[in-house]
């Protein structure tokens, strides 16, 4: 974390709430990008990001600088969105990913640009944590340690999870095509 940000946090904790505007300006879009993928309604997503930043402000003294402020606030935004989804009890498709599949088969499908629409549809059928994981890894190119922190999982399990999600995505694509 930058020294300026540390100083700003110290000032905010000292009662200068208006300095929190810097963090809002700088990191709200990043948090929004995570939330809007899980909660497609613009208004709901905006409200959840706002809730996340209010929570971040109220718990600012617990921010120890173990991660960057951006990663910390993204984690709060992610957990806020997940809790919201749980309250709504949204159902997600579960699929058996055990069938024999070769990695080449999956790799080829994910490289075939004529199948983008199928892939887009399959992604929407993944569970929220799975969607967030592949977005953070393949689209945002975030380091595994950051992703593990945001999702609150062990970083050494991420490679296996990514592998499983790839297989699941492929099966969902096939499932969609067959239907």
């Amino acid at each position, binding site marked *: 974390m930058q020294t300026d940000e540390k100083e700003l946090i110290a000032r905010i904790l000292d009662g200068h709430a208006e300095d929190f505007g810097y963090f809002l300006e700088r990191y709200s*879009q990043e948090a929004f990008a995570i939330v809007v993928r899980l909660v497609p309604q*613009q208004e709901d997503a905006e409200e959840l990001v*706002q809730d996340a930043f209010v929570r971040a402000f109220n718990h600012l003294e617990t921010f120890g600088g173990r991660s960057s402020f951006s990663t910390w606030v993204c984690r709060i935004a992610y957990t806020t969105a997940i809790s919201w989804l749980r309250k709504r009890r949204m159902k997600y498709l579960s699929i058996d990913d055990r069938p024999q599949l070769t990695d080449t088969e999956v790799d080829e499908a*994910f490289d075939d640009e004529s199948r983008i629409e199928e*892939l887009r549809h399959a992604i929407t059928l993944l569970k929220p944590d799975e969607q967030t994981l592949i977005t953070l890894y*393949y689209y945002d190119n975030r380091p595994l340690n950051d992703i593990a922190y945001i999702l609150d999982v062990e970083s050494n399990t991420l490679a296996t999870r990514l592998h499983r999600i790839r297989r699941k995505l492929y099966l969902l694509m096939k499932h969609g095509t067959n239907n």
Partner: protein
Amino acid sequence: MEQTIKDRALKKALTPEEPRQLPSNFPYLTLRRIKEEQRQEERRQHKMAIVTTILVSLAGIAALLYMVGDVLWKSLVSICNQPDAFVLVWPTLFCLVFFALLNHWLSRQYKDTKKVL
């Protein structure tokens, strides 16, 4: 991993079709909400402090009456029966009014200083 070279379709599928943005006044609205919540919290704490003070005072008075109530009552009756019992009433009232006004004035001064800072 080699996903920087491969997974082209997956990366394109993950790219949002329409870029979604927060409204430009989002930081302002969020800060306003934060300040409003702070004010509410201050008011809540103020109310809690008043309620606690009243409850503790009442408990103290009750305990005092329970332990030495009889003695206090007897002393009060004996004082009231003396001819010069109410000599100090007016000076005491004057002092109370004076301190109440002083307290009011000091509170206003403190609030004004806070606004300047």
